[in-house]
């Protein structure tokens, strides 16, 4: 398949989306490795993170790559969104792709939040409490959402965050990303202003 890349798209600003995807690939790879040793129960979670960082060979490196890639993915996705906004690339016929991108951004932030909680130190438990409070403040459906996240105790909560972080959110990200990329091929890269 022939691919035409227009000259204006060689600008580094047009690499931000690709960088976001590169970080995602790194996160999936290192995330699978971390999942080998991580134990999602309140009694063992923090100790298993310490074990990965201090005892497992190159565990500090893998965890470090996961951590910095997570931060990098959020930074580059926000910059990517700004680039698309200020070059007007969200306009017709690309409105739907903008909406998919907003969904990807929201999922990325959720992945960051759920991953932060998995560490299960004092900060993470506090963050989980704040997140539950935010969910609870949503009118009408807040109680139901809180129950879905909380379960009946902290053991349930951690399992649910674990499932969301490893399966639900990455799965949804993959589906939306496939759609995002397919639509870019379909519409081609937006012309400059």
């Amino acid at each position, binding site marked *: 398949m022939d691919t035409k890349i227009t000259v204006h798209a060689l600008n580094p600003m047009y690499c931000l989306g690709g960088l976001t995807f590169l970080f995602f690939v790194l996160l999936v790879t290192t995330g699978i*490795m971390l999942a080998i040793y991580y134990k999602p129960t309140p009694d063992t979670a923090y100790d298993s993170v310490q074990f990965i960082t201090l005892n497992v*060979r190159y565990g500090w*490196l893998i965890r470090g790559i996961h951590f910095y890639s997570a931060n990098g993915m959020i930074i580059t996705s926000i910059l990517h969104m700004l680039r698309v906004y200020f070059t007007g690339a969200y306009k017709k016929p690309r409105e739907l792709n903008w909406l998919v991108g907003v969904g990807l951004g929201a999922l990325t932030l959720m992945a960051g939040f759920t991953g932060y909680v998995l560490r299960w130190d004092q900060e993470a438990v506090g963050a989980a409490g704040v997140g539950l409070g935010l969910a609870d403040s949503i009118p009408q459906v807040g109680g139901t959402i809180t129950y879905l996240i909380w379960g009946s105790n902290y053991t349930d909560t951690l399992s649910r965050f674990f499932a969301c972080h490893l399966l639900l959110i990455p799965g949804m990200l993959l589906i939306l990303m496939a759609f995002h990329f397919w639509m870019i091929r379909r519409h081609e890269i937006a012309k400059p202003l």
Partner: protein
Amino acid sequence: MLLGAVGLVIPLLKISEFVFVPQQTGPVTYPRLRIANTNSVPANGSLLFEYPHKDRPAILIHLPQGFVAYDAICTHLGCQIHYDQTVAAGWENNPYQNFCPCHGGVFDPKNGNVLGGPPPRPLPKIKLDIDNQGDIYADGYESGLPLYGEA
């Protein structure tokens, strides 16, 4: 090209050692260190010292029942505890406490157990050995391992 391939493959091979579960290291040994003489710590007095290595604070307390010593790092978030005779006086009918100023953790000076506040575990208790001259030696731990902040 070849150099690039080798430069990529070797690090990846090294990093793949990640999947091998690390072996537990053998039992940790602790040094036997002289802390003080029995004459130098008055009854109900305390003395800060460093054990098992430099900059790791520990505390020696002269109770009516005798001498005891603990790791002096609060098991909550790692502040240094001190033997306080006033702040928590009267708690649980015990006038003297091991007290952490950060979040109000209180430990029993008799055995290191948590009496109040947020600490999740008792203080590690240091094994003491007093010789004929009255010199007090720290010689490992009786209970409470692992130490806070050290794997």
